[in-house]
C-alpha cells in the first residue's frame, strides 16, 4: 500500500436515496459525491430533514443507495456477502444520538465488549480492546458500573468506546452531541479530537451546531439532500448568505466577525475563535 498519498476512507459517487420508492420527488439524498480521506475530521452540517442521517447510514451500509455507489476502503456497500458487509460495519463505526438506545448490557464493560464478541475476537485480545477503548474515552474506572447513573456526556463516551472496541478506522457520529449539555458536548468533542489526532481515526461528525466545526479540518453542508458547501470551516463562516440559506446559524464569534467586517472594519469574517478575533480587534485602529 502507498502511504505518502492520503488514502481514501469513504468515497461516494453520485449517491441518491429515496425512502418512498414511488415518490420520485422526495430524494432524501440527491446525487451526492463526497470522498473522505483517512485522517480527516469532517463535520457534516444541515438542518432537520436535510439528509444527514440518511447519508450517514449509507457510509456503513445500513442503507444502500438506489443510485450511485459507496466504497469503504475498497469495499462497495452494495456487496451482499456477509463478510464484506461486516467488514464495512467494523471499519466504519457508528454512534447514534441517544446513548440510552444503543447500550445492550447493564454493565459498561460488557456493553463495550459486545462488538468484539460479535466479531469473534479472541478473549485476550478482547480484554485488551475493552481496556483500550474505555481508556481512550476516559471511562475505564467506570467499567464495572451500570450506565444509569452516568451523565449524558459520560454515556455518550461509553457509546463511543463501544464502537471503538471494534477498532474502526472511521467514526461516524449522528448528532451524538445533540442531547448533551455544553459540558458533556465539550467532553465528547475533546475525546473525538484526541482520537483523530493520536489514533489517526477519521471522524465524521454530524451536527447542526456550527460551533462544533471550528476545529474540524473540513465542513460539508447538506441542503435538501444536496451538498451545498464542501471546504474549510473558515470559508463557510465567512459566507453568511450561504449559511443562512442552508438554515444554519453562525456561532456568536463568527457572527460578530461578520458584523464587524460588514461595517467596513478590517476583520477576517471567517474568524470563529474568540482570542483570534480579539487579537484582530486590538490590531485595528
Amino acid at each position, binding site marked *: 500500500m502507498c502511504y505518502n498519498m492520503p488514502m481514501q476512507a469513504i468515497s461516494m459517487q453520485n449517491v441518491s436515496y429515496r425512502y418512498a420508492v414511488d415518490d420520485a420527488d422526495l430524494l432524501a439524498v440527491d446525487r451526492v459525491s463526497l470522498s473522505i480521506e483517512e485522517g480527516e475530521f469532517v463535520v457534516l452540517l444541515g438542518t432537520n430533514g436535510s439528509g444527514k442521517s440518511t447519508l450517514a*447510514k449509507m457510509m*456503513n451500509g*445500513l442503507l444502500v443507495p438506489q443510485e450511485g455507489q459507496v466504497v469503504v476502503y475498497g469495499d462497495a456497500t452494495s456487496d451482499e456477502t*456477509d463478510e464484506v458487509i*461486516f467488514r464495512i*460495519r*467494523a471499519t466504519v*463505526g*457508528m454512534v*447514534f*444520538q*441517544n446513548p*440510552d*438506545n*444503543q*447500550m*445492550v*448490557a*447493564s*454493565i459498561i*464493560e*460488557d456493553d463495550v*465488549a*459486545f*462488538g*468484539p*464478541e*460479535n*466479531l*469473534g*475476537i*479472541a*478473549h485476550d485480545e*478482547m*480484554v485488551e480492546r*475493552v481496556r483500550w477503548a474505555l481508556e481512550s474515552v476516559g471511562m475505564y474506572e467506570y467499567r464495572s*458500573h*451500570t450506565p*444509569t*447513573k452516568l451523565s449524558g456526556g459520560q454515556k455518550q463516551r461509553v457509546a463511543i468506546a*463501544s*464502537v471503538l472496541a*471494534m477498532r474502526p478506522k472511521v467514526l461516524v457520529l449522528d448528532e451524538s452531541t445533540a442531547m448533551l449539555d455544553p459540558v458533556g458536548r465539550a467532553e465528547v468533542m475533546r475525546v473525538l479530537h484526541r482520537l483523530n489526532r493520536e489514533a489517526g481515526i477519521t471522524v465524521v461528525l454530524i451536527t447542526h451546531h456550527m460551533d462544533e466545526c471550528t476545529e474540524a479540518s473540513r465542513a460539508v453542508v447538506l441542503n435538501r439532500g444536496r451538498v451545498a458547501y464542501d471546504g474549510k470551516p473558515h470559508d463557510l463562516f465567512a459566507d453568511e448568505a450561504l449559511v443562512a440559506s442552508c438554515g444554519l446559524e453562525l456561532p456568536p464569534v463568527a457572527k460578530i466577525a461578520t458584523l464587524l467586517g460588514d461595517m467596513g472594519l478590517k476583520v477576517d469574517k471567517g474568524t470563529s475563535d474568540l482570542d483570534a478575533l480579539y487579537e484582530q480587534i486590538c490590531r485595528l485602529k
Partner: protein
Amino acid sequence: MKDVVFGQYYPTGSGVHHMDARAKVVLALAYIVLIFFVDSFVGYFAYALFVLSVTLVAKVPLRTLLRSVKGVAVLVLFISIINVFFSGLGEPLWQWWILSVSVDSLLHAAKMALRILLLVLGPALLTYTTTPMELTDAIESLMTPLKWVRFPVRDVAVIMSIALRMIPTLMEETDRIMLAQKARGASLDTGNIFKRVKALVPILIPLFVGAFRRAEELALALDARCYNASPKRTRYRILRFGWRDLVGLLAFGSLVAVVVLGAVRYDFDGMIYDLVASWVH
C-alpha cells in the same frame, strides 16, 4: 452501587457470591425439585439447616433474607388455616360443622407452611448472591446444548440482556410521563380502581410509543455493532467451575443424603407426633 438492575443483589463478596452462576442456578433448580419429595420433618429441618448455613456463609443478614418471605406470608397463613381445619386427617380433637382439628392436620399444616417458606427462601438466596447479569450469562451457558436443535440461544441471551438493560430506562421514562400527565391535571392516585386503571392509559400509550422508537434505534445500533457477524461468537465473561462450586455441590449432596436417609432410618415424625399429641391433650 445500589441500582434497579441489580434487583435485590446483596454484595458481600463471599464465597457464595463468587460461585459459578451456572452451579448456583442448577443447585437452585435441584433445591426446588427436591423439596417436593420431602415429606418428613427431618427433611424440612435439613432444608432449613442448609438455607441457614448458606446464608451464614454468604454473609447475608438473616433479616434481609426473611424479608423475601413477606410476600408469601399471607399465602402461607391462608394455606395453613385451610389445612388445619379442612384436611380431615386423623382423629379430631375438635369438630364443628365441616371443620375439624386433629394432631395430624396441625402437623400437616406445619409441613405445608415449611415447604412454601423454604421454596421461597432458596431462590431468594440465589438472587441475593447473584446479579441478574450473571444469571443471564448462566442461563445462556446452560442453554447451549439447545443449539443442537437450532434453538436461538444467543438471541435469547441478547434479548434477556437488553430487557434487563432497558428496565431502569423505561422506569425513568414512566416517571417522566407520569409527572407530565400530572402537570396537565391528571389524577393518578385518586378515585376507585376503575378510574385509576383508566388514568393509566395516557401513561402506557406514550410509554409504548417511546419504547418502539427506542427499539428502532437499538436495532440500528445492533447492526452497526456487527450483531450476527460471526458464527464463532466469543464471550467476554468466562464462567469457570471452581472449587467453591464443588463445595456447594457437596453441601447440597449431603442435604439430599439427609433427606433420603433421614426419612428412611428415623421415625422422627413419629416422635414429633407424640410430642405434639401429649402437648395438646
